[in-house]
């Protein structure tokens, strides 16, 4: 009896495992006909690419799979309850609000830098909101398309005033320095190039996580840290110890880092939906429409009214509901709101930066909605 019992439990264990594994193999999960040849499961986008847009797939699925970093301060942080917040995360929510009408219908997928493009190609995520710099090779060779830039960033350096640096220091002053940065990103390459151009001899130390970079910097293991200016500002505001004074330089970043939504190429319906979500937040910001007062503006004449669904044709032609952008503004907010709520706490302000509206001398600009 007990022998049989042992064998049974063994079988059961194996069976449970097999069952658990089968949950992931969705080849037959949702399909009704058992012997039908491999019908495309609803979750994979690969097959649908041929005959439809990802937009239809996402609407049919009811959730948006949005690829984020999950560990980028103020851009996409995983919070204590597992939710993802931040500038990038809010744009994911904005797209979900526009496409699905519900800003919470987002399934955040945390991706590492090396797996992000593959995730888009294989359809694991519909959209990448992951501090991805728009570059020529990514746009062409890697097979990505880029939406409007939501944040203009640039690589800068941070040093201690005590070492003789000030805001007017240049890369040439780095001679002999140990420079710390994140491993596996383009920042490594940028600083090496810049230092070579300026004739400075530097030693590079690459760390796996950014927190380790700053811990080392605070302790003195690095003389200089370098990464995107947005991150440097945040760290300076939050982490500068009382006995040190840090300075960020040079005023002109050593690289251009335009960050924005990224998605698979040659899917124009999906691209339009995302692009115009971003534009809508910018336009509403220009008109001063916020989540608080959006209800008063629904029937405004002109651009605002058109976007908020007063005359909804522009949206319905795109495959969205007429009130798509009303949902974006009411549930998430306009560009300023998204920016200020996420980035002000880490010391980043719009005024005077490249991310100010074009009327204020910045680069944030949207085409007209007509």
């Amino acid at each position, binding site marked *: 009896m007990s022998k049989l019992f042992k064998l049974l439990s063994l079988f059961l264990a194996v069976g449970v495992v097999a069952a658990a594994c089968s949950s992931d193999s969705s080849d037959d999960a949702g399909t009704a006909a058992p012997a039908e040849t491999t019908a495309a499961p609803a979750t994979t986008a690969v097959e649908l690419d041929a005959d439809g847009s990802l937009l239809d797939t996402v609407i049919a699925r009811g959730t948006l799979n949005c690829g984020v970093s999950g560990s980028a301060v103020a851009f996409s942080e995983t919070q204590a309850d597992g939710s993802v917040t931040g500038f990038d995360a809010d744009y994911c929510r904005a797209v979900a609000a526009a496409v699905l009408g519900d800003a919470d219908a987002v399934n955040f997928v945390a991706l590492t830098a*090396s797996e992000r493009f593959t995730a888009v*190609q294989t359809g694991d995520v519909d959209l990448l909101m992951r501090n991805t710099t728009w570059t020529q090779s990514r746009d062409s060779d890697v097979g990505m398309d880029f939406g409007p830039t939501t944040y203009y960033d640039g690589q800068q350096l941070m040093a201690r005033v005590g*070492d*003789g*640096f000030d805001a007017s220091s240049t890369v040439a*002053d*780095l*001679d*002999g*320095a*140990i420079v710390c940065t994140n*491993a*596996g990103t383009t920042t*490594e*390459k940028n600083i*090496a190039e810049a230092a070579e151009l300026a004739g*400075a*001899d530097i*030693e*590079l*130390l*690459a*760390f*796996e996580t950014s927190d*380790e970079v700053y*811990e*080392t910097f605070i*302790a*003195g*293991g690095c*003389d200089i840290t370098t990464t995107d200016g947005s991150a440097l500002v945040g760290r300076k505001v939050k982490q500068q110890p009382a006995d040190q004074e840090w300075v960020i330089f040079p005023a002109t970043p050593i690289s251009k880092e335009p960050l924005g939504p990224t998605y698979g190429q040659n899917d124009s319906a999906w691209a339009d939906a995302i692009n115009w979500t971003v534009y809508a937040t910018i336009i509403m910001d220009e008109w001063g429409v916020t989540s608080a007062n959006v209800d008063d503006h629904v029937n405004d004449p002109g651009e605002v009214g058109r976007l908020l669904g007063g005359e909804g044709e522009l949206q319905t032609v795109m495959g969205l509901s007429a009130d798509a952008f009303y949902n974006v503004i009411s549930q998430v907010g306009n560009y300023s709101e998204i920016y200020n709520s996420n980035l002000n706490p880490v010391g980043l302000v719009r005024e005077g930066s490249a991310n100010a509206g074009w009327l204020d001398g910045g680069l944030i600009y949207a085409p007209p909605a007509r």
Partner: protein
Amino acid sequence: MSDTPTSTSAKVLSARPPLWRDAVVLKWVTQLFLLFIVLTSLWFLTSQAGDNLEARDIPSDFNFIERPVDIQLSEGIDTHPDSGGRALWVGMVNTIRISIVGIIFATILGIIVGLARLSNNWLVNRLGTMWVETLRNIPLLVQIIFYFSVLTVLPRVTLESGPINGWFHISNKGISMPRVFLADGFYQWLVVVLIGAVVGYYVHRHRTRIHNETGTITSPTLWALAVITLFAIVGIFIHPIFSWVGSIFGALASLFDSLPVLVPQIVLSGVALVGAAMWVRKFIRKHRSARGHLSLVDDDWFRIIFTAAVSIILVFVFISWSGLSSWILNSGRDLFEVIESKFNVDGAARPFDAMRPEIIQKGKFPNYGPSGLTMSVSFAAVFFGVVFYTSAFIGENVRGGILAVPKGQIEAASAVGLRRSQALRHIILPQAFRVILPPTGNQYLNLTKNTSLAIAVGYSDIVQVGTTVFNQTGKTLPVVGIWMLFYLSCSLTISVIVNWFNVRMQLVER
């Protein structure tokens, strides 16, 4: 003698059961069935992978080895490698470097820990226990990361920092110590030392003989070491007289250069065939009874056929793949040429040179200069991680090995009058060593494999470099293949060495 097997087999034939009840038939059918399933699955998976790779346009060739890559390594023999292959090579050297240093220090520390665990001193004993229990129960990766973040809070570098200023510096930029390196005259000096070793061997034999004849304690090992040391010291001054040795290697190099490709092909094939034949002969001899009666079961036949098949396949590979042979010839020639060039130095070269670490102020920052041997923070984290972690396991092996020597052995040793030190040397250690060695060999293997966790703190070992390479080129499969090949050969080397010791020391039983 010859008719006995025939008559038995005839009997077997006559009584042959139906196929589905014949144990031998069933046995082989089952095995072939499994082999079939395994091969089919492998074929299926590879064909799938091939299709998928093609569909996704992912190349999986090895041309990245020669192509330039854009990689910066944190440390190694070459921090700006110009090709993917060079980068992986640097990574391999880094892995081997940290493994060897790690094995040496883990062994020393492990022995200390093991002895501490056996100590009569209560505090030392407890400290050893704490060390073992703590380190064994925290994942190595967590430890490495932890040491890494602790090391970064060491004091900053100033122009006059270091516990022994001018000799030894510890700071959050790493640990810097004097560096001894091989200079041009090293290889000539090495010849002197080798001659010294030969002389030392004969001195050892001579002293042993004196001991055997007179019974006096002659400490032959000490003498031999002294002789070798003497040669080494003298060699520092007289080594240029051996500069002519280089021409021997030059001759070897030109010999290799002039050999046709056929020679290594024939040699390799010959080795394979002769090796197989010898093995079979030995096998048959072993299975022959004292009266010369040979009894082989199907399993034995399988082994013989398998060996023959493998050797024939090898011969086929050697003959058809002439690239392998020319590679052997070319690399042999290159090797000897390199050695020859090592002897081509002027007489004044020194075998060694040493440099003290220095701190130089360049630009605005005081940093370690290139003269000292600097251990980066990443290296130190991985190093301390693997050494501490492995030392806990080796310590347990040492303790277990010493405890495994039966109490009776120690009693018998003291009963025949051996002193404690003598008993330790002649009775306890030789027996404990047998118990300690196999698991410790496994720990060496583990240590080597564990250095792959360096990826977590950015030490440029082969896995970290490989990851960077395939992130840039997209050639995951080839890189993974190179990893596996590299680690397998490391493991093989270590286990061959350990096994060699093991076999030599096995106790003879009935």
